[in-house]
C-alpha cells in the first residue's frame, strides 16, 4: 500500500519544480531579446507572457519552501516527470499566441516534441514563422537535450539532488559529484557549440551564399537541433533546404557528437580510447547493419541512379534515424515510399537509438549490447558441458560483470520500449493509419527521433496527438520517472 504524501512532500516537490521553472524563465529571455532586436514585436509580447508565467509559478513555488529540502528517490523522480510536463505546457503559450498552430494541443505537442528532442511538428507555415519562435523551438531542444535538470544541478546544490540527475534518464557519473558532472556536460555543449556554430556559419556564408546574419541564424538553430538530436529545422524542408553536401557533412558530425554519451566525450577529451567499450562496438555494428539494410533496399528498388546519390542519401537518413535526430534531406512523402529492407533498416535504426546518457532516445546501444551478450551467454550455457564456467564480463569504461540484476534491468527497460512502440502503433492502427506508417511514426515518437512518413499532421486525430506526446515524454524519461508520477498521483487519492 502506498503512503499518502504529506504536505511537506508536496512542498518539497513544488519547490524543486519551481527552481527549474525559474531557469526556464531565464531561457525564455533569449527569444524575447531576439524578438525585440529583430523587430518582431508581436512575438516579443507573447514571450513576455511566457517568461512572466514561468517566473511567477517559479517564484510562488520557491516562496512555499518546505521545512527541509532533502529529496529522496520518489520525490526526485516525481519532480523530473512534472518538470517535463509543466515546461511544455507553459512553453507552448507563445506558440499558440503566434497563430501558427491550430489548437493548444498542437502547440503543446510541438513544445513536448521540442523539449524531448523529438522533432515531430504540428506547426503550420513554418516558412513564415517568426525567427524568435523558431529560436525558441530550438532552445527547447537544447534545454531538453542538455537537461533542464542538468542546468539546475550545475547551479544549485542540495541534499538528494542526484535523484534528479538519474530521474532524467542519465546514468553516467563522469566525476564523483553530480554537480561537477553536470558542469562538464554543459562545458562539452559549449565547446561543441562554439565549434559547431562557427563551422556551420562559415559553410553557410561561404558555400551556401547566405548573408552573414542568416548564416549565423541557420547555424545556431541547426546546431541545437543536431547536437541535441532534436530535428526541428528553420525551414519546412528540413536539411533538404540547403542542397549542400559540405553542410550535410558538418551536420552529420554534430549528430555523431550528439549520439555519443557525455562519458565518451569525457574519454575523448582525455584522449582515452573508447573502441573497446561494448556500447561503442554495438552502435558501430547496428549503424553499419541498418545502413547496409537500407542501402540494399534502396538499390533493389532502383531508387537512385548513382552509387554516390544512394550512399549520400541513405547515410544521412540512417544516421539521422539512429542518432534520433530526425533531420531529413528528402520529403516525408518520399520517405513513405521506402518499403522492404529500406523501411526495415530505418525503423530498426530508430528503435535502437543512440548511446546511454546521450541526448539520443530509443532503447540505447548499451542495453542492446547487453541483451545480445545475455542471449549469447544463455546459448553457451546450453551448448557447453554442464558445470562449464561462462564469463559474463564486458568492457564499458573498464571491465564490468554482467550480473543478473543488470540483465533484469536491461530487459525490463528494453521490453518497456518495445511495448511503447507497439502501443503507439496500435493506436495508429485504430485511427486507420496503415500498419507500416503507424509503426514507423510510433517508433519515431517513442524513440524521440522525429522522422515522419506524413502521419503527423495538424489534421490527425486528437487521440493520436496525445498518444505521440505521451510516447515522447515516457520514452525520453525512460519510464521510471513517469511511473513514479503515476504512483504519486495514485497515492494522493488512495494512499493510506
Amino acid at each position, binding site marked *: 500500500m502506498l503512503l499518502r504524501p504529506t504536505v511537506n512532500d508536496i512542498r518539497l516537490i513544488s519547490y524543486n519544480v519551481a527552481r527549474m521553472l525559474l531557469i526556464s524563465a531565464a531561457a525564455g529571455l533569449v527569444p524575447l531579446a531576439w524578438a525585440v532586436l529583430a523587430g*518582431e514585436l508581436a512575438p516579443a509580447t507573447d514571450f513576455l*507572457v511566457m517568461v512572466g*508565467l514561468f*517566473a*511567477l509559478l517559479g517564484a*510562488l513555488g520557491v516562496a512555499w519552501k518546505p521545512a527541509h529540502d532533502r529529496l529522496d528517490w520518489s520525490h526526485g523522480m516525481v519532480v523530473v516527470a512534472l518538470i517535463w510536463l509543466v515546461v511544455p505546457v507553459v512553453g507552448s503559450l507563445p506558440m499558440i499566441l503566434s497563430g501558427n498552430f491550430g489548437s493548444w494541443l498542437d502547440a503543446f505537442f510541438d513544445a513536448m516534441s521540442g523539449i524531448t528532442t523529438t522533432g515531430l511538428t504540428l506547426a503550420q507555415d513554418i516558412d*513564415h514563422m517568426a525567427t524568435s519562435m523558431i529560436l525558441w523551438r530550438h532552445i527547447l531542444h537544447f534545454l531538453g537535450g542538455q537537461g533542464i535538470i542538468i542546468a539546475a544541478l550545475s547551479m544549485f546544490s542540495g541534499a538528494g539532488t542526484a535523484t534528479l540527475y538519474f530521474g532524467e534518464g542519465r546514468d553516467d557519473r563522469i566525476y564523483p559529484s553530480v554537480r561537477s558532472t553536470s558542469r562538464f556536460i554543459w562545458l562539452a555543449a559549449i565547446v561543441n557549440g562554439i565549434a559547431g556554430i562557427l563551422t556551420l556559419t562559415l559553410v553557410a556564408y561561404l558555400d551556401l551564399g547566405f548573408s552573414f546574419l542568416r548564416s549565423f541564424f541557420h547555424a545556431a538553430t541547426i546546431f541545437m537541433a543536431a547536437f541535441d538530436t532534436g530535428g526541428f529545422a528553420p525551414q519546412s524542408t528540413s536539411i*533538404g533546404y540547403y542542397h549542400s553536401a559540405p553542410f550535410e557533412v558538418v551536420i552529420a558530425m554534430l549528430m555523431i557528437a550528439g549520439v555519443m554519451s557525455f562519458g565518451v566525450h569525457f574519454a575523448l577529451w582525455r584522449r582515452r580510447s573508447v573502441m573497446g567499450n561494448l556500447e561503442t562496438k554495438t552502435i558501430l555494428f547496428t549503424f553499419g547493419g541498418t545502413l547496409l539494410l537500407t542501402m540494399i533496399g534502396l538499390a533493389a528498388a532502383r531508387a537512385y541512379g548513382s552509387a*554516390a546519390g544512394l550512399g549520400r542519401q541513405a547515410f544521412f537518413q540512417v544516421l539521422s534515424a539512429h542518432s534520433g535526430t530526425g533531420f531529413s534531406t528528402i520529403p516525408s512523402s518520399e520517405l513513405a515510399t521506402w518499403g522492404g529492407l529500406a523501411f526495415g533498416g530505418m525503423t530498426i535504426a530508430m528503435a535502437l537509438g543512440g548511446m546511454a546518457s546521450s541526448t539520443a532516445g530509443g532503447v540505447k546501444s548499451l542495453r542492446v549490447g547487453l541483451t545480445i551478450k545475455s542471449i549469447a551467454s544463455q546459448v553457451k550455457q546450453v551448448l557447453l558441458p554442464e558445470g562449464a564456467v561462462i564469463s559474463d564480463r564486458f568492457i564499458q569504461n573498464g571491465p564490468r560483470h554482467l550480473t543478473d540484476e543488470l540483465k533484469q534491468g536491461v530487459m525490463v527497460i528494453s521490453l518497456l520500449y518495445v511495448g511503447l512502440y507497439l502501443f503507439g502503433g496500435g493506436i495508429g492502427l485504430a485511427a486507420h493509419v496503415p500498419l507500416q506508417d503507424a509503426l514507423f511514426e510510433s517508433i519515431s515518437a517513442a524513440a524521440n527521433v522525429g522522422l515522419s512518413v506524413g502521419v503527423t499532421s495538424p489534421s490527425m486525430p486528437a487521440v493520436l496527438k496525445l498518444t505521440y506526446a505521451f510516447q515522447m515524454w515516457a520514452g525520453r524519461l525512460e519510464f521510471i520517472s513517469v511511473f513514479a508520477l503515476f504512483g504519486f498521483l495514485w497515492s494522493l487519492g488512495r494512499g493510506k
Partner: protein
Amino acid sequence: MAQTPTSASTLLNSPEEFNGKQVTVVGELIGDYGLRDDGTIWTQLNGDPYATAPLRDGGRLSGGNIGIGVHGAAALFSGLDGPGRYNRVGPVVSVTGTWRYHDPDRGGETYLEIEVLEVVRRGYPLKEAVSMGTLLVGSLLVLAAAGVLVTIRRRS
C-alpha cells in the same frame, strides 16, 4: 515553353513521373537566395495556400508548407523582391524548367532547374499587429513574479 503545368504538391507526390520533364510551377519564393560561387542561386518555392493567402495577411491555417528546391542562374533572380519570411511575403513567380529527381550529378538531390522565371505578384512587407492586452498581461505577470521574489529575498 511550359509543356506540363503542374503544382509543387503534384511534383512531391509523383516525383519520378516528372523526372527530366519540363514543368511550370507557380509559387512563392521563400527563405534565402543562396548565391553560389558558380553564379547560380538555390532557393525554395512554396506552392501551398500561404503563397496566395499569407497567414498574417488574412489567410487561414492550411497545414504544413509544400515546398520544392529550385535552382537557376543568378540573372533570373535579379531585381526580385526578397524571399518570403516572417515579416515579408515573397514574390509569387511562375517558373518553368526541368524537374530533376534524384539527380545523379548532385548526389541524389531532387529539385527544379529553372530556365524561365516570371513574376506573378511582387513581394510585400507584412505589418505586425501587437496586442496591447498581451503586453499588459505579460507585464503584470513579470511584475507579480518580481514582487514575490523580492519579498522572499527580504524575508530571508
